[in-house]
Structures are given as structure tokens and as C-alpha cells.
């Protein structure tokens, strides 16, 4: 990772004025910012784990077979934000933390290294990450929306709070968010869980296994086909199924097995509405 030096912006005057007027108290200081970008070789890497503190993640996969425009490398940019008691400290603190890339055979990690001296006083804001589409991705963060587009390999997303948007993940998909919506269009099998938020998923390829759980929120599923589906739906809310061979409006629990039942679709929500459609409306 290379830094682009430190820049700073002065304290928010309006906020400071309000803070000073508040009866509770306030803190006087400065904000700092340091931009960075990084490039790491992924030629021997099959799977990349991105494990970062609270930050949005936007991952774009390029076509691995287009070596001209898609080098076997991880490219990214971003910036560190800081708060400090002086301008010099704000600038220095923003430039102190780093992103650390390590590789072990076919597995690589990208993680943040924040010294204790500035831990709690800096915040990471990632820009876009780019890598070839045949690398498996495992993305983890605390608070931050995650977007993954174009990956043909598998994708795993595990975050505490944030919305998740996936386009691709042909090799399979697993998503967990503590709070946030999930929006997926994938040809692969998928296992999606959110503590609070709605889920919208569309199977864009052949029929695949699908499991969706929400703590609270609706589920909307568009299956590739209902020919060999083993459908299990459970919610206290409304259940609406409209596929070529299944049509029902009910609530509580609904199960249907078509053909050999080799494609398992399990949808579970305590109270949210669940709707199942088909790519081919019949």
C-alpha cells in the first residue's frame, strides 16, 4: 500500500459552535485525512479474504481471461480519516495506520493494522477494490455496505451492519448481515441471512439450492425453475407463490415438492411477507 501523503481539513465550525453551546460539553480539535492506494499480486492466489474495520466495500471483478485489462492483482484505493488535538497530529495520525496484504500458498488476506496509539481516532473509508473474477472472495467488515459485482468464483460476505448487493457469485454465495437488506442476482446456490432487513434474490442461471432467513423483513425470490423444486416456506406473514406449477396465497407454513425435488428452496421469516416467483412465469 502506498500513501498519498496527508491532508487535513479544519474543524467543522458549525458543529463546533453547536458543541460549545451545548450544556453537556464538547471537545476541541481538528480532522485529518490521508488517501492511499494499493496493488498486490494475485497470480498464485485463489482466494482472498478482505477483513477490514468499519468501511463500505465495493468489489468489482474483471474478466480474468482479459489479461490486457485485467492484471492478476488486487487494486484498491481509499483514505484514512482522523481526529486529533492539533493539525499536525491530525495529519500524522491519518497517515499512521496501514493495510497489510499477506499470502500463503493460494490464500491471501488484506487486513488493517492500526497501532494502539491511534486506535479509535481513525476511520477507514475504502474506495473500489478490483481483482480477477476467478478469485474466491471472503469479505468481512463491521459497519459498511458491501457490493460485489462480476465474480464468477464463490463469494462470502459477513458484516455486522450494512446492505449487501451481489451480482454474480456463480461459484456460490453466502451472506450474513446483522442488519441490512440483501439484494442478490446470482446463478449459483445461495445461503442468505439478515437479522433485520428484507431480502431480494433472483436466480439468473440454472436452478440452484437457496436458503434465506430474515429476523424481520420480507423475502422476495425469483427462482429459475420450479420443475424439480422442493419448496419450504415459513412465516406468520403472507405467503404468495406464483410459479408455472404452483399458485397459492396463504400464511404460516407452505411446502411443495415438484419432480424429483432435487432443488431445495427454504425461505424462513418470523413475520415478514414471502413471495416466490419464477423467471419463467409460465
Amino acid at each position, binding site marked *: 500500500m502506498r500513501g498519498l501523503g496527508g491532508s487535513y481539513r479544519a*474543524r*467543522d465550525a*458549525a*458543529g463546533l459552535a*453547536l*458543541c*460549545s453551546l*451545548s*450544556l*453537556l*460539553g*464538547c*471537545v*476541541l*480539535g481538528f*480532522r485529518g485525512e490521508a488517501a492511499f492506494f494499493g496493488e498486490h499480486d494475485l497470480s498464485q492466489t485463489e482466494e482472498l479474504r478482505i477483513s477490514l474495520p*468499519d468501511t*463500505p466495500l*465495493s468489489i468489482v471483478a474483471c474478466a480474468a481471461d482479459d489479461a490486457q485489462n485485467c492484471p492478476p492483482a488486487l487494486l484498491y484505493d481509499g483514505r484514512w*480519516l*482522523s*481526529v*486529533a*488535538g*492539533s493539525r499536525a*497530529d491530525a495529519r500524522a*495520525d491519518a497517515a499512521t495506520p496501514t493495510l*497489510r496484504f*499477506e*499470502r*500463503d500458498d493460494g*490464500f*491471501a*488476506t488484506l*487486513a*488493517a*493494522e*492500526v*497501532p*494502539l*496509539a*491511534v*486506535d*479509535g*481516532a*481513525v*476511520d*477507514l*473509508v475504502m474506495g473500489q477494490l478490483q481483482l480477477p473474477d476467478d478469485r474466491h472472495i471472503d469479505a468481512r467488515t463491521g*459497519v*459498511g*455496505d458491501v457490493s460485489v459485482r462480476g465474480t464468477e468464483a464463490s463469494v462470502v460476505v459477513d458484516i455486522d*451492519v*450494512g*446492505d449487501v448487493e451481489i451480482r454474480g457469485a456463480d461459484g456460490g454465495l453466502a451472506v450474513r448481515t446483522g*442488519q*441490512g437488506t440483501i439484494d442478490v442476482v446470482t446463478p449459483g446456490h445461495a445461503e442468505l441471512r439478515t437479522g433485520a432487513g428484507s431480502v431480494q434474490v433472483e436466480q439468473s442461471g440454472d436452478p440452484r439450492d437457496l436458503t434465506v432467513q430474515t429476523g424481520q423483513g420480507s423475502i422476495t425470490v425469483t427462482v429459475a425453475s420450479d420443475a424439480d423444486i422442493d419448496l419450504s416456506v415459513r412465516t406468520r406473514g403472507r405467503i404468495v407463490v406464483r410459479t408455472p406449477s404452483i399458485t397459492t396465497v396463504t400464511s404460516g407454513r407452505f411446502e411443495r415438492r415438484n419432480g424429483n425435488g432435487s432443488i431445495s428452496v427454504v425461505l424462513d421469516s418470523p413475520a415478514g411477507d414471502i413471495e416466490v416467483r419464477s423467471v419463467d412465469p409460465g
Partner: protein
Amino acid sequence: MLRAAWALAGVLGLAPGSSEPSDGPPDGPPDAPLGLSERASAGEGLREPVSTREAGVTSADAAPGTTGLGRLVVGPGRPGVLHLVDAGGHHVATVSLRPEGRTVVEIPPGRYTVRDAEGATVASVEAETDQVHAVELPEAWQVEPAERSRASGSDGPSAPSPAVVTGPLASPDAPPPSEVELVPRRRWARWAAPLLSAVVPGGGQALNGQPGRGLAIFTGTVGLVLGTVAVWGARDPAAGATPDDPGPSNAREIVRLGALGGLGAAAGLLYVGQILDAHAQAVDRRPPTPRRRHVIALEVARFSTVGFAPGQPAYDLYSDWSLAIMGQLVPRVTLGISDLGIKLARHRRMVTVQAGARAAYRFFDRGRVWLAAGGGVLLQGTRANAAATPLVDDPDEPPPSAERALSMVPYAHFDARLFLLDRWSLGLVPRVSLPLWARRYRGGRSLPRYGTTFELGATLGVYF
């Protein structure tokens, strides 16, 4: 003077366990309450303060009926003279204390101050219509049981001491009790009232016979708690999650955080205060006498400030719970160990241990209000797991070790305290501090060095 004109004092020598008059009034029938007969004459024309006189009392004397007056029972106590002064500062009655008996004074309802011959306040008491209240004298005015026994000339086994009844005076039509029994205010209420207030704010006040006060406290406490919860719930847990999303405005966030801290502190102070108040009201309703000559004081404090934070949201509420043990070296000067606390964070398994030293000078202490100013230094030691662990252990490299950091935060503060009981106070403590290194808070958050910090503390203190 009007109160003084209405004041009637009867000195009633109560023979323990006896229904016989010991010092019968020379001019009153045994079944006619002396106080009542005197009140009648006083109400017709007395305009001067009436001194108490000694008189006997019989069982019938305890059933004066509904008089519209309140009764105060004083003593027994060391021989001396006490003066009753009403809320307007007018002298109402003079009470001669005796070690062998109690003195009962009938006076119009209201709050009175009991003063000694030099004019110093001995106690305060509230007289209520048709109620009997005991005036609790300080230890200096109380007599030992043995001394009381000698004074009453009792050589045999001591008879049970008469006590003071708190409650309505009996109806004149009611049959006279066979024995005068005066017992203190409900002793169980001293603990039941605060316990009930701890469970249901205001419940203790209602138990003490102050339903209006209890309802006001209940409404206020519930309102503050609900307000705190509502303001806390107004936060956006996903703030900063979406790229380029500015999130809530800085002004809105500062106002929200300020309200959160202020409401939380107010709710806490009111909650604790009403528990202390329930105890105070159950014991007696005199103003507290703060322990100026205390040796040790224990204080629990919560300091809060709205500080800036990196990223979004751009501001955060930094709260710090701590404990202080302060000693009073010389009158008005305190010095001790302060800011004791531990802060934990799951992040990197961070542990921060905090302690400090503080000195303060109390420059004002009148009535129930104390004002002090001082300063101190807060020290922090923090341990956290290594910032990053290597993907592959390198046998040639030592494993990453935990990181440690120290911090020092000098500060100055102003301390305003209000005593609700003789030993218990609530306080507000504005404080300004300057961290010389990053100051740690709960959850791994921190304020940077040189970040001048203005805080407001809410404290609960107990004095020994």
C-alpha cells in the same frame, strides 16, 4: 406573631407506663387536655409567644380530638431551653427540656425551626393538623437511659419508655385509651419507602403520605427515561455504512447526543435523588445537615461530553463512569484517589485501567449546598491485542505481542453539591481537561491528545 398567639405549649410529664398524672396541671381537670384549654384562651386574645409549662397528662389527655393544631413532642433531653421559631422567623414557643419526660407543644400547622439559647438551629420539624410529630434532637441534646432513669427517680426495673404516636389525634367521642402510648414515626418506612422508590419511582413518597409528590416524581422519572430511550433510538445504526452518504447533519447529531447525555444524567440524578428523598421524608422532614467534618467521602460519577469522531457519524457521546475516595485533610480541603474505573472493549480485547488523584477546596457550604473547586490528574493504562496477526507464523520472528499505552489527563473542575440527607449528596461537576495522550473510553473509543475537553459530571456522594 399570629402563629405565636395561636401557639400553646403544654409540658406534659409522662410517667412511663403510668396512667396517673405525675405533675398534674394545677388548674386543669384531669380529663381536659391542658393544651386545648390553653389554646382556647390563646385563640381569643393571646398575642405574645407562649412559653411551655410543665403539666401532667393522663390517658384522657391523649385524646384531645380534632383540634386543627399539630402536636410536637420534644425530649426527653438534657436540661436546657429550646425555642420554636416559625417559617417567618417569629418566636413561637419556649420549650424547657427535662431528662425525665417529654414536652408536648400544640401549635398551628407549619414548618418550625428548633433553636438553642444561642440561636443555633438544633432541628427542624413540620407540624401537621391533628398529627403528632417527634422532634428528633441531636446527640448532644439527648440523655442516656440511665441518666433518664436517675432523673425520674426510678430505682426498680425500668418501665418501658413512652414513645410518640404519629398519626391523627383521636376523636373526642372515642373512648379514652387505657394508656398513653406514643411511638416514633413508622420505623419500617425508613427503609421501606426508599426500597419502594427504587422499584417504583415516587412510590416511597406515596408511602410516606405524599401522593402528589410521588406522582410528580413518577411522572418526571418516567418522562426522562422515555425521553432518553427515544433519543437513543433516534440514532442511525447504519450511519457511515453507505459510501458518500453524509448521514445525519452534524447539528442534528450534536443536539441528539447532547440531549441523550443530558436526559440520561437528569434521569439518573432524579432516580437516585427520589430514593434519598423517600428516606428523608420517612425519617423526618427537616433539612439535612451536611457532614462538614467528614473524614472520608465516596463518590460515584458519570462524566459525559459530546466529542468529534472520525468518519461517520462525525460526533459521538463519550461517557466515563468512575469512583473516587476522597479524604478531608483539614476542614474544606479534600484530597484523594479519584477517577477509578475499568473500560473494556471486545475490539482487540482492549482493557483500560484508570485512576487518578484529585484535590479540591470547598469555598461555600451553607445549608444543604456545597460549592468546591479543584483539579487533578487522571492516569490510564491500556492493553490490547496486537493490531494484526501474521497469516503464517514465522519461526524466525517472535509472535506479535500485545500493545500497551499510557495516558495522562490533567483537569480542573467546579463542584456543586446538594445534600438530600446528612450524609448523601447529588452533584453537578463541570470539568475541563487536556489529554496529554489519547484518552480511552468504553468500547475502544478514544479522544486524541491535546483535544481540550469540556465535560459535565453527575455525581452521587456519601460522607463518613
